[in-house]
Every structure is written in structure tokens, then in C-alpha cells.
């Protein structure tokens, strides 16, 4: 990790955006928010053709498919100085799990480590690698922040989003009780053990509502879709947004799971 290291302020740094499958499919605006934040930080952003990091296969015990997907990621992202993902989970997969996956394969493990070392979660990349201390954005309202598990525990992402959110004009942060407790998403877990997942996200929804914040923010779309889906099923009046959108000044988009044009 870049803590304690010099910032990499080289101009025109080439960043490959790992957009993540969920952002690609469900919420492209998060991808465009990431592009804007990276460009504002002086990076040249490119998005090579991609699918997924392979977690659904990896966490289902299918190493062979995971390895095929990982090799595809190696090839696609070889040209870049850094790889950045608007997700702690996918960045964690590449940073922490790709090297594990290829342990014992001398050729590929080196490639996996090279990729791992240059891969970051978006917000921590901005603060820890690029030295970004503030953003140019406005958001009127009180938000609360959920720490998604992989970002928090695999990559140490905790203070970075709070630091940058604190520089958004008009935005107040109230701390979420049990912010570091899982929301119950867990990828395929949410479907394979739906009832358990529901019980866990139910508690999360209680804490979110109790925070009094109008908007819930986190850095991983999987968790956000889970929490948004639970909150809306309950009829809660909470907006759910990705941190990149707020930081990029795109907080006026319809929130996750809300109608495109809200009825007035």
C-alpha cells in the first residue's frame, strides 16, 4: 500500500479503469464518475475491453474458470501504469487473490504480482497514490457511510472516503452504527442463502434508518444494490449512492433503485 510512500504525481499517468461488472451493467454512471475523478487528478484514463474479475467463480470453488478470467485481465491491463477499480471487492480480488490463485505457477505468479502491485481501489488511489486532498463537488444533505468488507479489511480503505467526502460542499457525514459490519451481500451468498442474507441486511437497514441520514453511501455497487433493495422493499425513504458519484459532483442523478424521472 502507498501509505508512507511518496505520492506518484507523474503527469499523464496511464490508468486502466477496471470498471467492474456490476458498474458496467447496472450503474455506468459510477464508471463515468471514476473517469472524471481520475482525469481531474491528472491521469490519462483508458478502459480496455473487459468482463469481470472472476469472483463469482473463485468464491464458488471454480479455480480453472477464475484463472482463465484472470489471465484475460493480465493481458487487458498490461499497458497501464495503474489499474483502478471503483470497488474494494474487485480491487481486493486482483491485489490479494490473484497472486494466491497462481501460487506455484512461476510464470503467472510474477505476472499476477505485477498486476496486484499496481491495482487500487478508486478512492484510496486518489488519496494514497495521487495525493488528492479535496474534490470539487457539491451535495446538499446528510449522508452516512457503510464500509464494505473487502475494501475495509483487505485494502485498509476507511479514512480515505471520509476524508474526501468531508471536502464536498454542503455535505454532512453522520457515522453509521456498525459501519464495519457486513451488509449480507457476499456475492452469490445473497442468492444461495437468501434468507440469511436478508436477516443481515435487515439489521443494516435498521442502522441506516436510525442514523437519520437521508443518503447512504458506500464504495461497492454489490453492497449498495443489496442495501438499496432492502431499504426500498421496506419503503424506507433513504437514497443510496456510490461514493464516486458524490465525489464527482454527480449526486443529482436518480439514486440506485429509484425511477429515472422521479414523479413530481
Amino acid at each position, binding site marked *: 500500500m502507498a501509505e508512507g510512500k511518496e505520492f506518484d504525481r507523474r503527469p499523464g499517468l496511464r490508468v486502466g479503469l477496471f470498471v467492474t461488472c456490476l*458498474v*458496467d*451493467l*447496472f*450503474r*455506468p*454512471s459510477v*464508471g*463515468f464518475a471514476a*473517469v472524471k475523478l481520475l482525469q481531474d487528478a491528472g491521469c490519462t*484514463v483508458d*478502459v480496455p*475491453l*473487459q*468482463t*469481470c474479475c*472472476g469472483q*463469482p*467463480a473463485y*468464491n*464458488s*470453488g*471454480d479455480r480453472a*474458470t477464475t484463472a*482463465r*478470467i484472470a489471465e484475460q485481465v493480465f493481458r*487487458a491491463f498490461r499497458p497501464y501504469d495503474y489499474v483502478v477499480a471503483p470497488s474494494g471487492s474487485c480491487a481486493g480480488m486482483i491485489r490479494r487473490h490473484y497472486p*494466491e490463485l497462481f501460487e506455484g505457477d512461476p510464470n503467472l505468479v510474477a505476472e499476477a504480482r505485477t498486476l496486484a502491485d499496481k491495482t487500487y481501489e478508486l478512492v484510496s488511489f486518489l488519496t494514497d497514490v495521487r495525493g488528492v486532498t479535496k474534490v470539487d463537488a457539491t451535495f446538499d444533505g446528510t449522508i452516512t457511510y457503510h464500509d464494505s*468488507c*473487502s475494501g475495509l*479489511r*483487505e485494502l485498509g480503505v476507511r479514512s480515505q472516503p471520509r476524508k474526501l467526502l468531508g471536502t464536498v460542499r454542503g455535505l454532512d457525514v453522520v457515522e453509521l452504527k456498525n459501519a464495519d*459490519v*457486513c451488509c*449480507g451481500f*457476499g*456475492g452469490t*451468498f*445473497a*442468492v444461495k*442463502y*437468501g*434468507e*440469511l*442474507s436478508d*436477516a*443481515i*441486511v435487515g439489521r443494516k437497514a435498521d442502522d441506516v434508518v436510525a442514523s437519520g441520514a437521508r443518503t447512504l453511501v458506500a464504495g461497492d455497487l454489490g453492497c449498495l*444494490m*443489496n442495501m*438499496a*433493495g*432492502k431499504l*426500498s*422493499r421496506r419503503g424506507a425513504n433513504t437514497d443510496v449512492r456510490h461514493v464516486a458519484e458524490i465525489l464527482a459532483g454527480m449526486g443529482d442523478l436518480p439514486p*440506485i*433503485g*429509484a*425511477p*429515472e424521472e422521479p414523479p413530481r
Partner: protein
Amino acid sequence: MTVHPTSPQFKDNAHRAMGDPALQKAMGHVRQAFIEKRANAAAALPEFEALRDSARDIKAHTLRHLDLYLERYEERLSAAGGRLHFARDAAEACRAVVDICRSVGAKTVTKGKSMISEEIGLNHAIEAAGLQPIETDLGEYIVQIRGETPSHIIAPAVHLTRDQVEADFRRVHTHLPAGRDLSEAVMLQSEARGVLRDRFLAADVGITGANFLIAETGTSIIVTNEGNGDLTQILPKVHVVIASIEKLVPTLEDMAQLLRVLARSATGQEMSVYTTLSTGPRRPEDPDGPEQYHVVLVDNGRSAMLGTSFEEMLRCIRCGACMNHCPVYHEIGGHAYGWIYPGPMGAVLTPSLIGVDKAGHLPNASTFCGRCESVCPVRIPLPKLMRHWREREFERHLSPAAVRSGLKLWGFFATRPRLYRAATGLAMRALNLVGRSKGRFASLPLAGGWTRYRDMPAPQGETFQSRWARQKRRGGAR
């Protein structure tokens, strides 16, 4: 002889647990108190993280040289006048204990808390031999009079409310006045103490577990908070220690290091109230102690884990921190896991001991949130080991057919980026057309596992990749 697992019915077990109001009330304590206490204890000790490294290293070292330390332990134990009984499996272990009891003509047996005795079904074996085993740890005693098994490895009755325990005491302690006041937890405690006192004095054999066995001295150690362990092992004329092989550590110094992380991780105490070391039977100059000191050392599947990736699991010192911090355990308690060891440590250990064909749900019923690993005092990579079990299941075609075929279809597209972009581009546009007026789906074909419990947010429409490609074709990156 081992307890019959209900792990294959994990989903039904979990469903019942989530609908059990008493259990849900009782679990509130785990969700808050254990976590705060551990966090405070860890924060109060600057070297806590370094101690975790050292604890991990001590256990890893011991496991790498387990044969050596077992030999040394046996030597020192014999020199101190103790007797070692090695048991390959549950049946041998139970037989060894029963034989010891019979050899001294025992009628009643007191027991300190021991998870290995639960694992091998020792109480059943003792009862089958016509003897009466009496649990003396308060939680174990409660669980025993209810005919249950522990639901937590350090807090056996954590799944129960005070009201339930009061009802059990009134049901069982019929020799006491019916009108007595049992409205406070402390009253229940002192009633149990009174009932157990007579049992301690009458017992012919006392059985305890061991938190550690020390190779350099032949010593066994138990840590308790109630003092019941001491009475169990000192008062009867025979003390039987039952322990699994991974309890060994090389030296007293190593044990002292491990004790510094054990109680802090478990209950948030700096030390447990009692730390009791036993080395052999009573010597002539000792004021008290047993005439015979036996150690039943149980393998029961552990040695098969050595040299595999699951060797790391044998570092476990049974503190319970992983389950105390597990969001799944919080919802369902320990019994739903269907065998002796619940929570994340059980999700890794149980398949090793009873087979992944029976315990296959356990390593799957995890979100991989990683909180267990983040608090494990010996840094066992629990999510990684659960994933290893999922890999074994996948290799052996034990995963459900729907999961396998879904994965195969997804894998087909995920390894063909151009096809993937085209197909998902169409699919997301279609989904958007249907879902955009509401912004979400209350039900969706093939996604019932999701939409039964929560809405599915609708996609924004065109995928990121197809928008990006379109913009690039127009010659602008923005």
C-alpha cells in the same frame, strides 16, 4: 460415538433459528458485548498485534514438529507420574476414559468444560457404561440438564435467556423450595453452585479438557472463570485430562504468550480468573491433588490435516472470537451449524472432521466479510480455508447442479469479452426498458433468490462499455 450431525439440514436449522424469538433475544448479547470487550482489551495493549504474530508462529512451529513435541511431552508426563493414553478416534478415546473410570470403580464423574469431550460424545459413552457424568461449568450444566449441546465453544448456553434457565432450574431442582426467588442471574448462579458442591465432593473421577499441553514439562493447563475446573480436578482421586493433539506447545513461556491473546480475544479479560497448571498426580509433599493423573490424547482426524492447507486450522486456540464477530453466527446461533463447532472455525474444522459431503453448507454459508480473520488471535485465514473447501466441493461435483450450470453459462460469456459486451448490452437495455419507470424490480425471473427478500435495482440502460466504445468512436474520451 460422535454426535450425529444435522449440518446437511443447515438451511432448515437456520430458518428455525431465525424464527426463534428466545434465541434471537439471547443472541443480542453476542452481537454487542463480546465485540466491545475484545476491542477494548486489544486497544489497551500496544503489543497486541505483535502478540498475535507471535501466537501464530508458536502454534505453526509446534505443528511442524508435532511428532517431536508429542514424544517429549510423553516423556515428561511419565516422569511426573502421569499416564498417557493415545486415542486415534472417538471410540478409542471414550473407551480409554470409561476404562479408567471402571478401574477405580467410579460411580459419578464430574467434568470441566471440554469441547473435545463433546466432539467424541464422551457423556453418552460414560452414561452407557452406567456412570453419571456431571457437567460443572455453569453453561455446560445448563445445557446438560436441557439435553442439549453447547452452542458456543466458550459460552455453551449463550443461546438461552435467563427466563429459560430459571424454568429449567425449577424443573430439575425439585428438592428446593418452589417459592424461591430466582429473578436475578446471580441467584441462578448461586443455586447451581449449591447443587454442584455436593457433586464435586462425591465424584470419583474428575475430567477436564486442556487449553494447552506443555512439552517441556508434561503439564496440562486449563483456564476458567468459575473455579469449577479446579474443584473437578483436585477433589476426586483420579484426574483425567482429555485433549486433542494440537493443544501442544513447546514451553511454559510459549503458553504464557498464548494466554495473553486467549482471554483478550475470548471475553476481553486480560486473564481468565483461574489459570490452573497440572503436572502429574499428587506428590508426597503436596497438600492435595489426585492419586492418579491420566491424559487421553485424541487425534480423531487431526493428523490427516497436517501437511495440507487445513493444517493452519490446527492453530486454533478455541477463543470463540471468530463466531463472536460473525454476522451469520449472530443470526442463527451455534446449533444451526449442526455439529460441535459453530461459526467460522466450525465452517473450516467440521468438514475436516466429519467430511465435506456432510458439512458442505458450512463453508458456503459465509459472506467472506473477513471479520473473523481480522480478530483471530492466531491469524487463521478462515475465509481462505472456507474457499478451499468450496474448491474441494466443486472438484468433487458436490456443489448444487443449478450453481454449477449457472456458473458454466456465466463463465462462457465472461471469458469471451466481445460476445459478453454485445450480449450484456442488449440484456441491460431490455431490463432498463422494463424497469426504468419504477427504477427497481419487485420480482424478476431467475432472480427469485434475490427478489423474494429485496428489490432488484434496475440498470441505467446502455452498459458502461458500450457507451465508452461509442464515445471513443466519436473521437472523444469524455
